[in-house]
């Protein structure tokens, strides 16, 4: 473990309900007042969704490739392109062919219309199984399968942007995003990799995305409230469409290219276990001890689901005091599961880069300090899994 290399962020590709681009997001957020969250209550009522903004995919994805993807992949491939552009690596064949790709992905998306048609006919029939076989055989588009394979976001990024050093996809809801950051940090710090494209994407504008979460009653159905306000109403999460990709580099590699980093990724910690009482807090203590610096502010991945959110906020208050600036990012961009942690890391890096922090998103959040030199990013999964990352000024 000796001779650990420094890891820096040199590119950010961000798409959320607020629009696209790193600078666009900072300009919108990095002011005295935070923007009004964009929430659509009409897509799948009564649940709100932070919808995908108007996109012109052709800016990053050739038309022939667009046809081979569904929106979660377009969103990811698009943000990956933004990150490569931002880092000045786009179309640099030497760097792309040795660049390592790590993606956090879920299970893709379904053809809602086909599902509904088959469901109607199967339910109406007295031979449900046969109707299902016949209709699946004729109605499923062959290419749709490729929109459903988790690793095909990475596959599309390799094809469209020619990132071909290596390619790995992690799954497991929020934990996937934590693993992506953790793995990238470990590989660069150990000298195994010099430059990586990492991130994830999530398309929330579709009923098949909401259904699994409605099954366990995790979604908030009380309107447009932020993460903290929801707690007075039973809690719950609101899904959001997000694409979040980062270019991570070994500091010397970035310097040799003459690139100024956004921020330094100083440490990552991850765990799984009980959240009960002292044992839960003790686990978070151990994670925090692994990080080399104490933060000036926190970008929280809190989901709004009451047990998980209370566990996190109680801990942060106990550890950092009642007046510490914590921003629950999902109030603004929604729950994007696998993409959530990379997106929060991007927001932390933007703050450090611009030497400021975000104005409160809700009355419950404390005022921002004038400047920050280190930011903690949290991910307390809505069901389980915990992750921390700490970033410093580069």
């Amino acid at each position, binding site marked *: 473990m000796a001779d650990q290399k420094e890891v820096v962020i040199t590119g950010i590709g961000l798409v959320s309900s607020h629009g696209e681009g790193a600078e666009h997001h900072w300009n919108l957020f990095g002011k005295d007042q935070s923007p009004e969250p964009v929430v659509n209550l009409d897509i799948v009522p009564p649940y709100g969704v932070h919808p995908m903004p108007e996109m012109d995919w052709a800016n990053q994805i050739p038309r022939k490739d667009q046809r081979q993807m569904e929106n979660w992949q377009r969103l990811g491939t698009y943000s990956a392109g933004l990150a490569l552009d931002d880092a000045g690596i786009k179309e640099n064949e030497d760097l792309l062919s040795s660049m390592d790709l790590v993606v956090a992905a879920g299970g893709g998306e379904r053809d809602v219309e086909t599902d509904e048609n088959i469901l109607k006919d199967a339910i109406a029939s007295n031979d449900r199984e046969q109707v299902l076989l016949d209709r699946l055989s004729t109605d499923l588009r062959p290419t749709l399968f490729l929109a459903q*394979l988790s*690793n095909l976001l990475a*596959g599309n990024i390799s094809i469209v942007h020619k990132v071909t050093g290596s390619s790995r996809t*992690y799954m497991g809801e929020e934990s996937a995003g934590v693993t992506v950051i953790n793995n990238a940090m470990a590989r660069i710090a*150990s000298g195994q990799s010099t430059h990586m494209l990492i991130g994830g994407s999530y398309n929330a504008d579709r*009923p098949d995305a909401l259904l699994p979460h409605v*099954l366990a009653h995790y979604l908030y159905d009380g309107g447009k409230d932020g993460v903290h306000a929801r707690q007075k109403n039973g809690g719950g999460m609101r899904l959001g469409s997000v694409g979040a990709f980062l270019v991570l580099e070994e500091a010397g590699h970035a310097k040799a290219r003459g690139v100024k980093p956004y921020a330094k990724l100083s440490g990552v910690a991850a765990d799984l276990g009980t959240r009960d009482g002292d044992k839960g807090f003790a686990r978070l203590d151990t994670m925090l001890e692994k990080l080399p610096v104490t933060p000036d502010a926190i970008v929280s991945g809190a989901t709004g689901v009451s047990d998980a959110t209370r566990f996190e906020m109680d801990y942060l208050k106990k550890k950092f005091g009642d007046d510490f600036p914590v921003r629950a990012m999902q109030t603004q961009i929604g729950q994007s599961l696998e993409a959530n942690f990379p997106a929060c890391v991007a927001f932390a890096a933007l703050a450090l880069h611009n030497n400021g922090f975000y104005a409160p998103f809700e009355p419950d959040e404390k005022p921002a300090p004038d400047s920050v030199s280190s930011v903690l990013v949290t991910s307390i999964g809505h*069901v389980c899994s915990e992750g921390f990352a700490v970033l410093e000024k580069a």
Partner: protein
Amino acid sequence: MAKYTDHLGRPVVVVTGMGVVSSLGRGIDENWKNLTSGKSGIHKVKRFSTEGLSTRIAGTVDFMDAEEISAPGISYAMADATTEEALDMAGFGKDGFPGPLFFAAPPVELEWQHRFDLVKETEEGEIGYERLLASARAKKQEKMHNLIQLGTIAFRLAEKYGTKGLPISLSTACASGATALQQGIESIRRGESDAALCAASDGSVTAEGLIRFSLLSALTTHNNDAPERASRPFSKDRSGFVMSEGSAALVLESLEHAEARGATILGTIRGVAEKADSFHRTRSSPNGAPVITAISKAIEDAGVEIGDIDYINAHGTSTPENDRMEYNSLHAVFGDSIHNTPISSNKSMIGHTLTAAGAIEAVFSFKTMLEGVIPPTINYETPDPDIPLDVVPNQKREAEVSTILSNSFGFGGQNACLVFGREVA
């Protein structure tokens, strides 16, 4: 210290426990007996009706006591069984496992049986997602929810077997099993842990799964009436793969850690490499460059010479394109010596176990070295003149095997290769 580190000064990684389930049976002994007898696990699908489908066979695993007959239910049952077998063999008891879990996770999602169940729960809303959502809203379905979360199997295994830290679920499509091992190797080499549990499981033969692969023309449509003859890797008359189920788990440790606790060492993992392909979503670059790079880098990473490889455990899916591409790439790396290097495809007997394939084939590779027996490529009746390989046709072969190359390739341009060794040094 030298004996504990490899040619690049990294900790030597050894295997101390293994477990496997495939359509050939449960556990290493039953699998190995059937595999070396040239028995096929492929059969007519009984789990669901296949009336009218162009492919009606698969290597399903129908003998597990799964909590639910669904992809997540069967995948978990198999992963649980192989993890237990591997940990028992390695001698890790109830005190938990001293390292992380890397799990190659199958694709799971809500299945049609779930949708049908949900529709029946309520009369509210039009039949479709409106009804499904209304039903879910009316009645909490926690079990159904948990089963279809992509991290659930790894989380449950981690909790049950006491692995350390955050378990990792991963997918590199049909290379996933190899990637799980790669993660474990890297974690030990980087010094993050002394041990790693690497597992893979895939029980996703559902009607929709079978149809999806059919629509991509990936599955063989021949031999529906003689299923055991359907998977024909490297034969001229091969026509596609057979979708199958299975799981494997391997316990990896640093040599130093394994010796310190007096564990029995089953073999070493000498090298690993991967290379992504940007050519096509389901096809490999015609010139094979990424595969050639992955094979060459794995051999280099292992610190061995091409001439040291005395057996290749092929990806060998039995699709016209894969087997030709695999041969061409091997030929480019090995030159004409490839014609005299034994190579066989376990998939001729167990079919393509998708997410689990790389891990299952690793277990069989270690058995090959331990037993001095190479499992055959069955159904090899019509050699393909374009693929002049010694595929160990139809009958097992006794042979001293000390170094093995194992290939895994997947949709999305995934290529991962591993080099295994029998001896520690």
